[in-house]
C-alpha cells in the first residue's frame, strides 16, 4: 500500500518537502493506519465480548445481566466499565517487584495483539502477508504466558504465584497438541501462508477443511479444546480459579492494569477463534460462494471496487464465524465446572495429544489415498506451486 502512495506522490511531483522525508512519512503513516485499523477491530470486539459475556452469563443463570447502562440491553456497559477501571487507583503492592509488576500486563497485551498482524480478514486483507503466518501466529500467541508468569511472580503474593505456576504448566503442555492440530490443515494446504489456506477452501462449504476428511473433523474439536485451554478460559481457567486462589495471577492487580490483562485475554480468545476459522471453517469464504456467483472476483475480471466489496463481504463472513467461536467459548465457561489441575494434565497428555498425533497420521494417509478429500471438490485447488511446503510443516512439529 505504501508503494502505491509513493508512486502516486512521485507522479504528482509537487516540491513540498525533500523526497526522502515524504517517503519516510508515507511509510510511517501507512504503517500506523494499518495498526490502528487492526487495533480498532480488536478493541471493539473486546468491548462487545465483555458485554456478551455478562449478558450470556446472565441468561444462562436465568437472570437478565446488565440492563441499565445505555438503553434496554445495557449496550454501554463496556464503556461504563472502562471509565470505572480507568479512574481507579494504580496500586503496586509493597512486596511486589515493581518493574515486573508494572510491565507484565503490557507484555500479555502486546503478545495477544501482535497475532492479528498476520491474520487475514479477507482475501489479501492482511497487514503482513507472511509466508509462515500459521507458525508465526502460534509462536507469538505462546508469548502471552510471559505476562502471566511475570505478573504472578512479580506480585509477591502466594495466590499469584500459584496461579502463574498452574498457567505455565498448562500452557506449555497444551502448546504441543495445539501445534499438531494446526499442522494438519497446513499439511493439506501445502502452505503455512494463511491466505493460501483460506483460498483453497473457496467454493461451497463442503470445501472447508473441517469437512476434508474424518480426521480433520475430529482435529477441529481437539483444536477447540486445546485453544480454550491455551487462552486460559473456563473450564481450564485454573490460573484464576476464583474459588481457590482469590483471582490467581491477577490477585494483586486492579484498575487499568487489570483491565489490560482482561483485554489481552479477550484478544487472544478472538485470535484463536480467528485461527480456527481460517484453518478449518473456510476463513472468509461463506457457506455459499456468493461473490463468485455474482462474478465479483478478480478472476472473473470484475471492477476493482466490486472485488473489494466482495472482500468486505468476506471479512464480514470471517468475523461472523470468529464471533460464533467466541460465543461458544463463553457458553462453555458458564456451563462447565472447572477441572482440577491433574484432570487438566490428563486431558492434554492422555487424550488431546494422542488423538492429535493419530489424526495427523490419519490425515496424511487420507491425503495419500484420496487427494480430493471426503466430498468431491467443486474446484480443485491450485497448490502446485506450494507442494514442497509439506516438509516445512513436518519440521515445525519437532521444534
Amino acid at each position, binding site marked *: 500500500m505504501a508503494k502505491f502512495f*509513493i508512486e502516486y506522490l512521485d507522479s504528482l511531483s509537487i516540491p513540498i518537502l525533500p*523526497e*526522502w522525508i515524504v*517517503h*519516510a512519512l*508515507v*511509510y*510511517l503513516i501507512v504503517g500506523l493506519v494499518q495498526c490502528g485499523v487492526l487495533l480498532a477491530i480488536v478493541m471493539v470486539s473486546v468491548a462487545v465480548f465483555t458485554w456478551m459475556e455478562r449478558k450470556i452469563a446472565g441468561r444462562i443463570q436465568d437472570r437478565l445481566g446488565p440492563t441499565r447502562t445505555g438503553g434496554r440491553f445495557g449496550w454501554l456497559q463496556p464503556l461504563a466499565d472502562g471509565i470505572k477501571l480507568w479512574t481507579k487507583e494504580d496500586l503496586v503492592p509493597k*512486596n511486589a*517487584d515493581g*518493574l*515486573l509488576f508494572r*510491565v507484565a500486563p503490557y507484555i500479555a497485551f502486546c503478545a495477544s495483539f501482535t497475532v492479528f498482524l498476520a491474520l487475514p480478514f479477507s482475501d489479501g486483507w492482511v497487514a*503482513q*502477508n*507472511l*509466508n*509462515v503466518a500459521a*507458525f*508465526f501466529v*502460534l*509462536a*507469538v500467541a*505462546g*508469548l502471552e*504466558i*510471559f505476562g502471566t*508468569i*511475570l505478573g504472578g*511472580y*512479580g506480585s*509477591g503474593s502466594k495466590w499469584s*504465584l500459584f496461579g*502463574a*505456576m498452574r498457567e*505455565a*504448566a498448562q*500452557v*506449555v503442555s497444551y*502448546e504441543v497438541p495445539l501445534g499438531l492440530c494446526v499442522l494438519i490443515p497446513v499439511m493439506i494446504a501445502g502452505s*503455512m501462508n494463511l491466505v493460501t489456506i483460506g483460498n483453497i477452501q473457496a467454493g461451497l462449504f463442503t470445501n472447508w477443511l473441517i469437512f476434508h476428511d474424518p480426521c480433520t473433523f475430529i482435529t477441529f474439536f481437539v483444536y477447540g479444546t486445546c485453544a480454550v485451554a491455551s487462552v486460559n478460559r473456563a473450564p481450564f481457567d485454573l490460573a484464576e480459579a476464583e474459588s481457590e486462589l482469590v483471582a490467581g495471577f491477577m490477585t494483586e492487580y486492579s484498575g487499568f492494569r487489570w483491565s489490560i490483562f482482561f483485554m489481552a485475554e479477550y484478544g487472544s480468545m478472538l485470535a484463536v477463534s480467528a485461527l480456527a476459522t481460517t484453518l478449518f471453517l473456510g476463513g472468509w469464504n461463506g457457506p455459499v460462494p456468493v461473490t463468485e456467483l455474482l462474478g465479483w472476483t478478480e478472476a472473473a475480471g470484475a471492477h476493482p471496487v466490486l472485488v473489494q466489496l466482495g472482500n468486505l463481504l468476506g471479512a464480514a463472513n470471517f468475523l461472523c464465524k470468529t464471533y460464533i467461536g467466541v460465543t461458544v467459548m463463553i457458553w462453555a465457561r458458564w456451563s462447565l465446572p472447572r477441572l482440577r489441575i491433574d484432570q487438566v494434565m490428563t486431558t492434554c497428555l492422555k487424550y488431546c495429544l494422542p488423538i492429535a498425533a493419530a489424526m495427523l497420521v490419519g490425515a496424511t494417509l487420507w491425503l495419500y489415498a484420496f487427494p480430493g478429500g471426503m466430498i468431491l471438490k467443486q474446484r480443485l485447488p491450485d497448490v502446485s506451486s*506450494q507442494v*514442497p*511446503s*509439506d*516438509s*516445512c*510443516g*513436518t*519440521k515445525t512439529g*519437532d*521444534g
Partner: protein
Amino acid sequence: MEAINWHSFFFLLFGLAAGGFALAVVLSGNIVRMGFYLIMSLGAVAGLFFLAGAEFVGAMQLMIYVGGTMVLLVFGVMLTARGPFVSMKTPGGQWVLATIVGGSLLVMLLHTAVSVDDWRVKAVAEKAELSEEPPEVELSETTNPDRLGMALVGVRSDQPDPRQPAEEFGMSGYLLAFEIVSVHLLVVLIGAAYLARTKRVGSRD
C-alpha cells in the same frame, strides 16, 4: 532511499534493544529480572530476523528461544528458589573469567565480520560504483521456507544439477543432521522421564 531509511532505523532500534537488554542481563542481580531482560533481548533478535525478511527463522527464534527456553528457565527459578525474590552476587573471580571468555568470543566474531570482503564499506562503495543503479532494498521482502524444508528432508532444490559422485558427499541436504538431532532429543526426553520417574517405595533395587 526511503526504504533504506526505515530499514536502518529499525535495524538500529532492534540492535540497540538486543544489546542493551543483553547488558542488563549481565549487570542485573535478580534472576527473574535477568530472565525478563533475556526475553526482551532474544525478542529483539527475532525482530532483526523479521527485518531481514527471514520470517521462518524469526518465528523459530520466538517459538524455541523466547517461548520454550525462557518459560522453562523462569519455571525452574520459580520451582527452586527459596525466598520470594532471589538475587545473586557474582564473585570477582567469576567476573574475570566471564570477561576473558566473553571478550575472546567478541574478538573472534569481530574479526570474522571484518574479514568478510563484501561487508566492508569500501567494497560496498566500489560495488555501487560498478553498478550504476543503487541496489534496491525491499522492505518486508518475504522469502519462502520451502527450499529449507526440502533440504531438511534431503532434497537440495537450490542445486538441481546432478553432480559427480565424488562431489556428492555433503551435498545431499541436511537429512542426516536433522535425524541425528531428532534422535538425540528423543534420547534426552526418555532420559529425563527416567530420571524424574516416581521410585517405588520399598522395592528391591
